[in-house]
């Protein structure tokens, strides 16, 4: 037995050192822990319990010193003794988790922490420890009962009458099954989140009655916890309340690069409700956070959320493009595109001026974003310039943008381009966008022009012209007037199979 105890103690000291040096999850720590547990388990199998008496620098088993270390910084015995622990016993049935937690607890550098309290909190089933209270004399005396000069029996009668009690009525305090079920569910429910919400309500209620620095600081602490837990609803409630106390500069605490960049994964991972709360939360930020926000949103993948964030940044800028302008020179395409988009959202007179240097940017996505941004400026002819862009996607973007609003000015130019020799060579999608844009921006001559495109007699390049007939027919159907429908019906009767087929398809779609 003594040998085994000696082995256990050697193993204990090595394992604790490993816990302290490598941390709890390191394989080396586990390599020390496993044989230690096995040795204790072997002992407990034979002797049921293993008890150590703790003295200042020593540990004793069966009155024999089995451990001694007089260095206060390293002595396990001293660490336990210092906080009043005088005995530790391990019992048969000891589980690995329990022993691991025990070692983890006593290995920690406990400067402020009381090791006895920490061990108590572990709530072990097979480890017990005895803690001594500081020796002090308690001189408390039982207080004498005060005897008043009254008739106590009369007092009893008065009380019973006052409370309208029937002291003879039988009482059955047994719980019925429903009460038991409700009680059990109340006991087992995890109230952590609910508690935080209630704590916030309580502290806010407090401030409704009285201003208190402690309460404000507590709310600030809770707001930090909320943000760490992605609970932006409550963070926002706290900030909203504390905005009444500007001297505490609540929002400034979160307007730093580290905090804001820590949000970068949230737009893609939060659920819809939390994301909306997040958007509302960052609405508290001032312009100075724009550079961090621009970096934060540069990794967002979900388009609709990115768009919401751009709108939010535009809101934070409050019509002042200054924080955005440096990003128009950003080498990072994503940040540059975001900056262009935000500028577009701001709908400023000067947008064209700011964006003009980017009209011939090497990256087509940049030019496309410029087109989108320009759409807000109500200057269609500036956008129209991009129809000369070398990239078909940019041109398609232009046509889509111009189709979003009516710009009659561009109609003649659109017609001219459709009639041009180059038009049949464009890809079908671009041609389709041309016709779509034409319908949106067309004047009273549109029907006539579309009819001409539909029925045009073509000698050469019939194959190329087939798509134009089809698109013209579809455009007529899109116009949808009586006159256009008649034209399509007339087309069905034509001998030309291409015209007939185009009209049939258009009418079907109509």
């Amino acid at each position: 037995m003594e040998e085994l105890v000696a082995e256990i103690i050697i193993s204990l000291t090595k394992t604790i050192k490993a816990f302290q040096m490598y941390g709890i999850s390191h394989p080396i720590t586990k390599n020390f822990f496993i044989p230690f547990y096995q040795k204790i388990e072997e002992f407990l199998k034979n002797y049921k319990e293993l008890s150590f008496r703790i003295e200042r620098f020593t540990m004793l088993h069966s009155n024999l010193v089995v451990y001694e270390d007089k260095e206060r910084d390293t002595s396990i015995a001293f660490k336990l003794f210092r906080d009043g622990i005088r005995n530790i016993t391990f019992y048969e049935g000891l589980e690995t988790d329990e022993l691991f937690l025990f070692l983890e607890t006593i290995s920690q550098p406990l400067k402020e922490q009381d090791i006895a309290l920490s061990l108590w909190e572990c709530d072990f089933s097979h480890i017990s420890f005895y803690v001594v209270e500081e020796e002090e004399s308690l001189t408390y005396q039982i207080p004498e009962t005060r005897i008043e000069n009254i008739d106590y029996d009369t007092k009893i009668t008065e009380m019973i009458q006052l409370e309208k009690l029937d002291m003879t009525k039988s009482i059955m305090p047994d719980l019925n099954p429903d009460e038991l079920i409700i009680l059990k569910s109340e006991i087992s429910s995890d109230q952590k989140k609910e508690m935080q919400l209630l704590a916030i309500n309580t502290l806010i209620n407090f401030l409704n009655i009285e201003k208190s620095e402690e309460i404000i600081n507590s709310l600030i602490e809770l707001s930090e916890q909320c943000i760490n837990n992605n609970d932006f609803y409550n963070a926002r409630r706290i900030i909203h309340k504390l905005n009444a106390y500007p001297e505490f500069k609540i929002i400034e605490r979160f307007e730093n690069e580290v905090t804001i960049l820590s949000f970068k994964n949230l737009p893609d991972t939060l659920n819809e409700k939390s994301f909306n709360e997040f958007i509302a939360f960052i609405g508290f930020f001032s312009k100075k956070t724009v550079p961090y926000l621009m970096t934060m949103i540069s990794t967002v993948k979900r388009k609709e959320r990115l768009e919401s964030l751009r709108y939010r940044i535009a809101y934070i800028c409050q019509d002042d493009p200054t924080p955005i302008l440096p990003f128009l020179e950003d080498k990072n395409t994503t940040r540059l595109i975001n900056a262009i988009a935000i500028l577009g959202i701001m709908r400023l007179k000067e947008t064209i001026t700011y964006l003009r240097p980017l009209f011939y940017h090497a990256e087509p996505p940049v030019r496309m974003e410029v087109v989108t941004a320009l759409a807000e400026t109500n200057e269609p002819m500036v956008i129209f310039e991009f129809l000369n862009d070398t990239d078909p996607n940019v041109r398609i973007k232009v046509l889509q943008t111009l189709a979003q609003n009516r710009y009659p000015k561009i109609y003649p130019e659109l017609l001219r381009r459709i009639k041009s020799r180059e038009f049949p060579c464009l890809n079908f999608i671009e041609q389709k966008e041309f016709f779509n844009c034409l319908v949106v921006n067309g004047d009273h001559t549109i029907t006539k022009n579309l009819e001409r495109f539909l029925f045009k007699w073509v000698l050469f390049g019939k194959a190329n012209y087939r798509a134009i007939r089809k698109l013209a027919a579809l455009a007529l159907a899109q116009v949808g007037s009586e006159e256009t429908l008649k034209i399509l019906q007339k087309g069905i009767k034509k001998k030309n199979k291409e015209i007939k087929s185009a009209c049939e398809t258009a009418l079907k779609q109509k």
Partner: protein
Amino acid sequence: MSLYKSGQDIISFFSTLVKATQIYDVNNDVVQGAAKKFISYINSLFTTTSYIELLRYRDYIFFNRVRLRFEIEGYTSLQFINEKFKRLTIKSLSFLPGVSQNEIIKFASVFKEDRDSFLKLYAMEKFKFINIEFSSGEDEIPEFFQNGEQIKRSYFKALKVTKNLMQNLWTKQPIDAKSIRKVVYTLIDNLVQDETGLLALTTIKNFDEYTYNHSLNVGILALAMGERIGLTKINLVKLGTAGLLHDIGKVEIPKDLLYKIDNLTNEEWESLKLHSLYSVRQIIKTRGLDEIAISALIAAYQHHWNYDGSGYPTLGEIELRPIFYARIIRICDAFDAMTTPRPYHPISYLPPIAIRVVWERRNTYFDPTLAKIFVQLLGLYPVGSCLELSSGEIGLVITQNLGYFDAPVIKIVINSKGEKVDGRAIDLSLEKDIKIIRAVYPQTYNINPASYFKVG
């Protein structure tokens, strides 16, 4: 699996088996099935333990030295076994490795009998792997059972810490937050060992220092309720801390108002009502904002909210149900306040009257389920109650009787001739001839109930 859980299971399986033998023949499938389960369970325990012992000391049952608590879950089984042990005068029952299904069924069918038949049959059967030790009346305190002196010591230590804390807050001195944690842990340890002993100490009512006594008493009562309900240790810590600190905001109320003897004006009353609000601030000062402090501050804020939405601080139109801990503290606070003399009502309610008030105000002031548990815990005649008996004697309730809410164990303190005596203890659930006539003020007989618990 913990010893505690194993103990609960053993009690549950064993009481099921005994109850089955009360209804069915030993060869019936129900009995055989219950015995099979029991045997299989204890055999699984024998892989990690060499003995299984159920021991009764006072009204407590211990399984392999671990006290089994009277929780809502398993309450009936534990009560049944405790009652059987009491009536059969069993001190301990041990099962040894090798016990068979047949032996266990035979034992259960003997165990179900009344005392005389049981003693006869037990002597006849000669069980090989089941041992019984009988109680000799005044049993020795088990070595692992914390003695009463230690509980009293812990109580007064807790009182001192509570007093120091409040006084330091009053005088704006640094506070020792660690000592409050220690107090709660110690109270929980004491409660797990001996809730009757600790509850008895709540009968101490100090007129001059009632604020400290009240805080501690509410903490103890709340913990005893939490333990009865079956809260986990960490939740007991939250509840105990909340109970202990619920009135800590009183340190912000001017002392002359707090101790005013005359009736309070409306304005003064409104100021006094702010104490639950101030408790929030003081709890934060004392404990910071950890999980335990958060529960405590909410409970403190809500401890004057009633179950029906009334109370204070009012929230205007909003009606919210107080949190679980606040509903527990609401009852404990009201009960202790009713039974404690204070400057503005020097004659406190008798505990049996206060218990009836709690009962009558369930659904309005108090959570009805929790009110029932409170009555179960303290009984209709709580410890410390002074009772006039049909024998002409005066008895002092010294302990509750599990399952008999209206029949506690009492100690005769005044004989039928009106003389003070250090009389016998009577279990009113066993002595059917003695009835309770009514509760009386101990002052009428110049009795100080707390002194009968040999405190100090």
